[in-house]
């Protein structure tokens, strides 16, 4: 029986590090990349006697995310301890939320080849991250760095509504966009600030009962997620087809070998002994806080994209590119106040502006541009009016990008303004035609392809500053077309 006779069923658990300044239960910095254990204190080292005090921003971020994903925000949620031993878990338990999370029942809409699809989100909860341990082969020991221990996480758990690896990737991208839009997460998978575990199972098509699921852990890129899920689906089908049984287990994606492998040995008992965290009273959320967070909620990527298409008449492709990042979309809208040819504006965003940003190698971002939306508008108006050529405008934008000077000043300084005075252009056209009487004859005799030659001669004589539309117009008139 082929793969196509089986229906994959996938649910995702995302762990997103929150963009707070300090950790969830202490004042240590959440900064990435510090020397091992530089950002630790008695609390996040799990010293005897320490107690957690909750970071208010963590609660606000959770509410913000919950509202953005259409969840119910629970008036009371409860902290629990998840007990297990691991060297990167300093207290021997993780403070998390278990049976009473802060947000429940939301959803996220994604695009699939069959159209829009809504993926249900079962819960969102807050918890602390663990530290990091790396094996040092030279000494045969593992080294433990607790800088990350206590960094606030959001865990976002979907229902098993995803039906292919592609849908899973689509969901993750959409979720990441939302979190980044909200300013809750930086979306960085390589540094591990956006991580994903996948629950994968298969069932024969037409069945309603899900198969045995396997948990895939710690996959750190969209490509690997796709590969790991596809590998796992194929493995399940193969095992089932050969009469075998899928074990409930946790598997890791081995990037080197391109396969998943079992993570825990069989004797490992899974029993986290959750119980309510006695050091933290239940969290009560006043309506006022929810209202306050709701008011500060930005427009989300999907509605924004739809609005860009309707309000600015942009194609879906353009709208998607412009809405990919919130600052970019906001800058576009600011520019659109000053330049009404939105498609042309969009072209400039995708063309020259994208190129300049790219060439800066990340030293300049959309929020650190030296010029203002109004100035970009002026530049495009100048092109529209024929004050400068399209090519010259590219140079001007480059200069604006580097120096932040006003486009008018650059145009004047560099003498880039086009000659659009009919009399002046006509004089040159007459002169060129007079000088090239032979060519004029040929043209009039039907050798129309040499029209470009006359344009070239006029532009040359005008040092490139002739308004091309006007030059064309006058030449045609004089040549008798």
């Amino acid at each position: 029986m082929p793969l196509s006779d089986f229906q994959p069923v996938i649910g995702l658990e995302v762990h997103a590090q929150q963009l707070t300044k300090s950790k969830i239960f202490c004042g240590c910095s959440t900064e990435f990349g510090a020397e091992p254990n530089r950002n630790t204190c008695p609390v996040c080292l799990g010293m005897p006697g320490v107690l957690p005090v909750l970071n208010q921003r963590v609660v606000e971020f959770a509410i913000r995310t919950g509202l953005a994903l259409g969840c119910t925000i629970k008036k009371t949620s409860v902290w629990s301890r998840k007990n297990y031993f691991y060297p990167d878990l300093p207290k021997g338990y993780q403070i998390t939320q278990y049976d009473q999370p802060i947000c429940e029942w939301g959803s996220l809409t994604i695009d699939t080849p069959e159209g829009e699809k809504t993926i249900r989100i079962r819960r969102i909860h807050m918890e602390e991250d663990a530290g990091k341990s790396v094996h040092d082969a030279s000494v045969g020991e593992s080294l433990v760095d607790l800088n990350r221990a206590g960094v606030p996480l959001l865990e976002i758990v979907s229902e098993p509504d995803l039906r292919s690896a592609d849908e899973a990737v689509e969901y993750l991208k959409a979720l990441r966009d939302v979190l980044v839009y909200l300013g809750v997460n930086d979306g960085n998978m390589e540094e591990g600030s956006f991580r994903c575990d996948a629950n994968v199972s298969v069932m024969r098509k037409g069945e309603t009962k899900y198969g045995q699921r396997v948990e895939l852990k710690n996959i750190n890129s969209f490509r690997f997620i796709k590969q790991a899920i596809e590998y796992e689906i194929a493995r399940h089908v193969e095992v089932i087809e050969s009469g075998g049984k899928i074990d409930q287990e946790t598997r890791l994606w081995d990037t080197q070998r391109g396969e998943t492998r079992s993570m825990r040995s069989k004797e490992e008992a899974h029993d986290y002994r959750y119980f309510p965290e006695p050091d933290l009273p239940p969290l009560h959320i006043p309506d006022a806080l929810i209202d306050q967070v709701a008011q500060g909620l930005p427009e989300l990527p999907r509605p924004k994209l739809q609005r860009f298409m309707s309000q600015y008449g942009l194609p879906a492709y353009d709208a998607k590119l412009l809405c990919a990042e919130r600052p970019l979309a906001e800058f576009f809208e600011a520019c659109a106040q000053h330049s009404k040819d939105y498609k042309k504006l969009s072209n400039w965003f995708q063309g020259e502006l994208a190129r300049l940003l790219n060439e800066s190698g990340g030293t300049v971002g959309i929020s650190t541009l030296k010029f203002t939306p109004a100035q970009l508008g002026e530049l495009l108006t100048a092109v529209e009016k024929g004050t400068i050529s399209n090519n010259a405008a590219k140079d001007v934008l480059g200069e604006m990008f580097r120096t932040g000077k006003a486009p008018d000043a650059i145009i004047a300084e560099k003498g880039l303004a086009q000659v659009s005075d009919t009399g002046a252009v006509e004089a040159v056209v007459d002169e060129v035609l007079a000088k090239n009487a032979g060519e004029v004859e040929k043209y009039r005799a039907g050798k129309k392809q040499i029209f470009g030659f006359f344009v070239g001669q006029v532009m040359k004589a005008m040092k490139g500053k002739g308004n091309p539309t006007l030059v064309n117009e006058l030449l045609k008139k004089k040549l008798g077309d």
Partner: protein
Amino acid sequence: MALTDLSMLELAAKLAAGALSSVEATRACLARAAQVDGKVKAFLRLDEKGALAAAEASDARRKAGNPASPLDGVPIGLKDIFLTEGVETTCASRILQGFIPPYDATVVSLLKQAGLPIMGKLNMDEFAMGSSTESSAYGPTHNPWALDRTPGGSSGGSAAAVAAREVFGALGTDTGGSIRQPAALTNLVGLKPTYGRVSRYGVIAFASSLDQVGPMARTVADTAALLQLIARHDPLDSTSAPVEAPDYREDLEGGVRGLKLGVPREYFIDGMDPEVEATVREALRDYERMGATLVEVSLPHTKYALATYYLLAPAEASSNLARYDGVRYGLRAKDAKGLREMYGQTRERGFGAEVKRRIMLGTYALSAGYYDAYYLRAQKVRTLIRQDFSRAFEQVDAILSPTSPVPAFKLGEKADDLLAMYLMDVFTLPCNLAGIPGLSLPCGFTKSNLPIGLQILGKPFDEARMLRIARAFEREHDFTRRLAPV
């Protein structure tokens, strides 16, 4: 009268008058410890240098007319459960041998700010699990009233040091009676405040929802004065109550006339020592004579408190003690092969028998398949026990009972009888389950001169009234003036 026989407030008055210096008082304590601690074994470690330095600083403040608090310069001791920056803190366990804390517990900071020289760290049951100090990894403490007997526990070192006048007062912690029971067995006043009244930050956790810090001293006024220094909200403890503390000494002499005092019928049980029962009943009659009304009350779920406690406390403890894993501090089994063995051997060797027993019990109570039947059910019974008290306090201002069903027992006597040992806490632990304050007050002696304690239970944050009730009795008797014979 020896200097060390003074109460904290008597000493403070002499310090304030310039009649004595804190350095003199501290040296007197050191001398007294040198004289008696070989027999009492209250101290796990003395901090002579630290105490004398603090005493000198205190004398300078007093001389400049600028004392930091009413008790500035009065030497005290700390149960070894409080983290003291730079001074080894072991919780009487092998697993923390050599552990030098990088920070002070909030209450330690408060005492230091108030100018009290800290004499050192006092013995206790390992991780506060016990009622006799016999589970200390460093050997038991002896009762200054009868050296072959226990001073009680778990704050037995604190009790013995104060009773033996090695320090003027001490801090203990109370999870199921660990301040009140040793206070009763050594003729001290010991107060477990309302849960959340005193910060737990920097106090090594046993059972986080039950643990509370409190003062132990020889008089009621001393107890009030010491409580005054530590009763405040702490932004480092999320369970610390945002409640302003009253002046605990303001109304101390107010008497009990017109107060209704509850006598719970469930607290006078079979198996109670007859001398204890008779003495406590005599104390109740004294209160009536002083103008209080005795009201019989019922706390019907009392008999379930012990079982509830012995599920909840070990469960929380099993989690709280997971951090002692040999990775970041404390003992590590050096010869272990691999991580798993390192964990297992470190904890096997680092913890004593009672601690391991409770970790096992607590782990079991939380484990898959048993949580609902044990842990969750115990939490529900805890609610019933709290409700018992709420109802009783609708009728009365405070509740009186014995603190301990027996006076100090002989060291080793109950070592093999687990359940008999657990029974020592039967009158004290309902108070922790309910989160209400409890106080033990000296109320007499057995024929063989062993102290007997009267327990006063109060409404949440009603410590001032409890102290007033205690003071009324103290004023009529000389029990708190009697000194241990050591």
